[in-house]
């Protein structure tokens, strides 16, 4: 259902807080109908980007468009079309969950019925006071308010923070359903398996700069993989060490066991070297996004973000 029409576009979006540049020259396109993960460690600029998109803070320079509308000039109209879950939010503790959702339903009819369905799916009681909710239940209430209006675009800041694994899985299923229905989802996260599970593409941000935008599958295909090899007896590993020229790293070795980090394109060479050795076991799992992410991060630190 992904189209080439952008749901979110930013043009040199920059935000400085005093001398600190929290976001630098962000040029980003998120397409309609896709699930886009915005990754980076704490303080990398994810929340700043989301708050700029929602017009909670104003850019130092650059601008952004959502669904073709300027985020500053059409902030009010956009809030009818966009669902948002802020990071670390709190709301009036005296309200019941139902009261909180009623407050958020103003100006957009029909949300409460869907809110009830969503609350049931997440196992959220509508009668409890917001102030008595655990972090996870408060997050569920936030997710319900973000999704209750069936918005075209949902912007979520670390949506599964505090959720237990079962609810997290329910949330993933919901994201899949929303995507099937052609909705666009932009979410920030630093939980890599989550992004791997639900996102079509990811953007990686580091110290306020976007260092990569890739499809999840392609990112995994292109990055280093981890390999563990066990031999029948202690072997001479000098041929393996020689693979260092091809970027293969000997992560650990001891007796009849070695652990390697293998870059894309060197697998063939490694297998050929191993073929001449008495291998009794080989573990070579699929590349995880975490490895890809770390690899990209290391490359960026070394000044090579490609």
């Amino acid at each position, binding site marked *: 259902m992904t189209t080439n029409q952008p749901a979110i576009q930013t043009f040199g979006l920059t935000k400085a807080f005093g001398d600190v540049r929290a976001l630098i020259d962000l040029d980003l396109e998120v397409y309609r109908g896709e699930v886009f993960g915005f990754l980076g460690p704490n303080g990398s600029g994810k929340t700043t980007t989301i708050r700029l998109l*929602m017009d909670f803070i104003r850019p130092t320079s650059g601008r952004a468009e959502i669904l073709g509308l300027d985020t500053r000039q059409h902030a009010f109209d956009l809030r009818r079309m966009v669902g948002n879950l802020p990071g670390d*939010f*709190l709301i*009036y503790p*005296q309200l019941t969950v139902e009261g909180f959702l009623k*407050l958020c339903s103003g100006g957009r009819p029909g949300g409460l019925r869907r809110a009830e369905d969503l609350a049931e799916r997440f196992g959220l009681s509508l009668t409890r006071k917001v102030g008595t909710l655990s972090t996870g239940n408060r997050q569920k209430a936030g997710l319900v308010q973000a999704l209750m209006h069936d918005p075209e675009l949902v912007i979520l800041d670390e949506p599964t923070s505090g959720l237990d694994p079962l609810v997290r899985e329910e949330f993933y299923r919901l994201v899949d359903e929303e995507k099937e229905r052609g909705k666009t989802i932009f979410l920030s996260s630093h939980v890599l398996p989550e992004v791997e599970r639900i996102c079509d593409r990811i953007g990686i941000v580091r110290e306020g700069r976007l260092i990569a935008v890739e499809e999840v599958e392609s990112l995994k295909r292109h990055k280093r993989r981890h390999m563990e090899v066990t031999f029948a007896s202690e072997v001479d590993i000098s041929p393996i060490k020689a693979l260092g020229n091809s970027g293969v790293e000997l992560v650990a070795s001891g007796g009849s066991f070695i652990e390697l980090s293998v870059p894309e394109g060197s697998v063939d060479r490694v297998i050929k070297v191993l073929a001449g050795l008495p291998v009794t076991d080989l573990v070579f799992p699929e590349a995880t996004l975490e490895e890809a992410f770390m690899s990209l991060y290391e490359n960026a630190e070394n000044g090579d973000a490609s």
Partner: protein
Amino acid sequence: MKRALVSVHIRMGLYGNLAWAGGLVLYAAAISWLYPTISAVEGMGDYLDAMPEQFRELAGVSDLTQALDEQGFFTFEGFLSTEYMSWFPVLLGIYAIISGVGLLAKDAERGALDIILGQPIHRYAYLLTRAATQISVLGVLVLVSYVTLLLGAALINEPISELNLLYAHIVALGLIVSLFSFAVLWSAVFLRTSRAMAVAGLATVLAYVVNILSPSLGPFDWLEKLSPFAYYESLSLLNTGDIDPVSIVVYAGIVVAALGVATRVFERRDLVS
């Protein structure tokens, strides 16, 4: 959204506002109940004449008893003015300032602004809706005071002009809402309760002190005109019922200017979280 906001904030502030209303009722009732006893005391003039010279200088009169008598101090209106009407806008003013500085800053500090302003509501509409709600609450509290005093006067059989008492309350409300609006302005500027309270509170205390000390300020007595308290003269209002149009203009001007600037600032600024 606006209606829901009003309803939520009225419900959230209900117990606090009921406590304020209860306090005002007790205060107003006690003052009404005390008057027959106090007015029967002889020698009040001697008591006032025994005040130190410095006190009389501070008040700007040489014969305190005569001055107060001329102003109607020894009537029920005078007693009400001294013991209640001079203090009640100060008390409600404190409440107005506390609620004003928290209007935006509390929501910002608890992280609620991102949720609320993520809904389809303009920032100006949010601010003005919240302000209008609180001004209405202040209006109800002033009404409670008015009704309690009327009932109190009736119970002790002291005739008082309902209209004059109403005018005094209306001008008092103007003063209270001015203080509230001024506090809202600083709430919008800082989005931090402590900083807004420091500035709004200090400025209000200064304005109050300037108004109190104005008779002894000599060539600087014009400073009194900078204090909103100078435009509220409860005794004159209770005695004559003449509302000085300047006071209405000043209070309306403060409210419009403070809320206007607050809206402008809030529209333009980053929401801190």
